[in-house]
């Protein structure tokens, strides 16, 4: 009995419970919106959302993982920065600059052989993403410019610059999208093509998912170790919690701020690369004046995952799952805007995980106190 109670009061359980609780409340609210907009089909619609990627079988689940891949990276980007005391609102800019870089190399640098081509493209995507965060990092560390302001500005610069560069270098005018990357630059399937497909007569209806999800999960695990187990992570977190004490301890606090931002930017940039190096059936860069939604969704992913890299993997998969499910709502009589609102509500409430994390132990402990 005692072990059960200890488990219930343990930190890990508490964190997980808080995130799950936040999700449940988000879903309830989403259901209310469904009821209001179209009460006759609300229950059916809610079922579709809950079914998420499963609505279209194995391919659908593959799509969930495909769209979760960039979310894991941007979630890590925001979460990592947050752990080190910085608010990285610049993931959309870093993401799209990384995406452009990867696609550009994927289209143009055909002289590279197969595995090297996509590897180089990914590394370059990460570097450019890091470069996009370097500027706010330097401004923050040496001129005390708040990183929220400077990263937002860099978002717009990144978005317009990427649009411009796509148009002058790798634009497919017929489709109004960026060109397909060379086959050698498409991320390999890594065995996932044997799982995530729907049989369509004699052919396979393939999901777009590829080894990017492996890379994303591996990066999350690496980040977990960097943050929690290394002296580097120890320094970065110390600077995040208390810059003065870090300086007192002889840590170069300013350099660490810059490094934190650059690493966050590299993560987001890599996310851009992973999403767009996915062949003809995958995503292409649209030249529109909209900030990359994958970048902003990194914020709720990080919040829902409580900035824990492992939590972020699950949070990203959940949000991707709900989004894919939401898209299938169009089969019913729902206006597309309502679908977006519902998904936004669920994500919005999910971000309250942090609040529930504080609330839950108080409720649990209170109850325990009454019993004893």
């Amino acid at each position, binding site marked *: 009995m005692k072990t059960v109670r200890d488990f219930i009061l343990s930190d890990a359980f508490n964190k997980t419970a808080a995130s799950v609780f936040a999700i449940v409340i988000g879903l309830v609210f989403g259901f209310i919106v469904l009821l209001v907009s179209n009460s006759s089909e609300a229950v059916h619609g809610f079922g579709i959302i809950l079914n998420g990627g499963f609505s279209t079988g194995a391919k659908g689940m593959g799509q969930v993982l495909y769209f979760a891949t960039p979310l894991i990276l941007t979630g890590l980007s925001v979460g990592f920065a947050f752990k080190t005391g910085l608010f990285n609102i610049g993931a959309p800019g870093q993401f799209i600059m990384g995406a452009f870089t990867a696609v550009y190399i994927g289209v143009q640098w055909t002289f590279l052989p197969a595995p090297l081509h996509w590897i180089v493209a990914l590394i370059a995507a990460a570097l450019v993403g890091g470069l996009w965060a370097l500027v706010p990092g330097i401004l923050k560390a040496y001129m005390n410019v708040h990183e929220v302001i400077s990263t937002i500005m860099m978002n717009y610069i990144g978005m317009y610059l990427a649009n411009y560069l796509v148009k002058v270098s790798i634009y497919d005018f017929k489709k109004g999208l960026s060109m397909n990357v060379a086959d050698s630059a498409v991320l390999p399937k890594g065995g996932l093509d044997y799982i995530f497909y729907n049989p369509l007569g004699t052919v396979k209806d393939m999901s777009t998912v590829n080894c990017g999800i492996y890379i994303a999960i591996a990066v999350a695990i690496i980040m977990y170790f960097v943050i929690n187990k290394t002296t580097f992570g120890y320094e970065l977190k110390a600077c995040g919690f208390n810059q003065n004490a870090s300086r007192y*301890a002889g840590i170069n606090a300013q350099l660490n701020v810059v490094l934190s931002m650059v690493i966050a930017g590299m993560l987001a940039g890599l996310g851009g690369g992973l999403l767009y190096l996915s062949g003809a059936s995958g995503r292409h860069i649209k030249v529109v004046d909209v900030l990359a939604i994958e970048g902003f969704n990194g914020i709720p992913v990080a919040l829902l995952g409580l900035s824990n890299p492992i939590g972020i993997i699950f949070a990203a998969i959940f949000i991707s799952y709900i989004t894919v499910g939401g898209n299938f709502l169009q089969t019913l009589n729902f206006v597309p805007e309502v679908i977006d609102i519902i998904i936004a509500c669920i994500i919005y409430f999910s971000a309250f995980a942090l609040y529930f994390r504080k609330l839950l132990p108080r409720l649990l402990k209170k109850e325990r106190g009454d019993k004893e």
Partner: protein
Amino acid sequence: MEYVIEMLNITKAFPGIIANDDITLQLRKGEIHALLGENGAGKSTLMSVLFGLYKPEKGIIKKEGNVVKINNPNDANDLGIGMVHQHFKLVHNFTVLQNIILGVETTKGGFLEMEEPRKKVLALSEQYGLKVDPDALIEDITVGMQQRVEILKMLYRDNEILIFDEPTAVLTPQEIEELMKIMRGLTEEGKSILFITHKLNEIKAVADRVTVLRKGKYVGTVEVCTTSKEEMSEMMVGRKVHFAVEKKASSSGVVTFEVKNLVVPSKRSSKKAVNNVSFDVRKGEIVCIAGIDGNGQSELVYALTGLGPVESGHIFLKGKEITKMSVRDRNVLSMSHIPEDRHKDGLVLDYTLSENLILKKYYTPQYQHNGFIRFNEVDAYAERLIKEFDIRTGEGAKTIVRSMSGGNQQKTIVAREVDYDPEILIAVQPTRGLDVGAIEYIHKQLVEQRDAGKAVLLISLELDEVMNVSDRILVIFEGEIVADLKPEETTIQELGLYMSGSKRKEVAI
């Protein structure tokens, strides 16, 4: 005897701890009643009960013989109970007058009416000798002045029972003197005062009676004039406490730490924060820099430890010039620093105790391997220091430092810095805000370091500490060293004169 407030048999428990266990406190009209106890003895809880912030499980509160219910601070205010908090609750970019009327503004047709309040404030400040400029901004006036504003706030609300929560912690000796006068004046005008403190000198100086708490329990209430300081501290700590620091004569050796013509620029004015300061500290010697707060001590320490800028001059440690060295290099060369502000500089409050204990050592081969922290080693090290330095916590090495008491946080820093085994230990107000038990402990550590042949530089505002602990006293005034004295050859009064700038002698080094 008529009691204006009585708290009878108050019991307040929190999960796992009984903060107040059957405590009785009776305040007479027109008296200054001290509430004495170590950190964590339950003083704040008791006052929070009186102020309506906590509801007690047992016990009643009476005002002038009638039982009253205090459910929130507004009830307390209606009953005429006011409080000066240790950390002032003032709006910094408001004027004195605006702060005083905040919450009880007079309005005329929806517009602020300032003339009447101004008259009332001026009358009050006249009556009680609380000189303030009603139009000065809070951020421009001294801490002592800000405290007067807090007192005026209570008077403006016609409070009869005034609670002072450790009011002297932030004041200079002169300001303390002034405050004592004000407190006596208030009681002469019929106000009753509850004075929370753990400084026995102040109780002796100003209080009529004192109630002592220890570990949440009521120890007793005694008349101050018939009780000695030793008796009071024994009541508070539960054992005899040595005020005089026991130490042998110093056997100082070669110069370890030397400062030559140091100049530090000031952030606020063109005047230098530290002006042409030279001194040295030898092995086996405690040198104390005494002075009123704000005379350049912080800037001096920041310059010595590498946290702040140096305009000109030289600093030597073990014969090496360190003036331009990084903080890390100075530490490695053998410097420890117990900082003035333990929350700002000394601790990462959201880190665990063990993570804080390795703050200066995490990168050494002993605690990391290939960039990975060796948590087993770290925990073993933390366990050793916890035992050696008697750091008390809820969850041992895994305790988040923010949840620890102030005394134990300070012990954490002292443990880390002393165990760093430095040649020079720079300790800045190491006993600030601590109770006598912890103060005694820290003084003992400083003397032990000295006896182990280390050089100790102590920066202190407490004259008792200066006189008791040091082997040599340097007095700093407006950024200059104005005296170099031996504690056995001087008096507190003489020190006071040097500290206030009314006396100076040429210091030849």
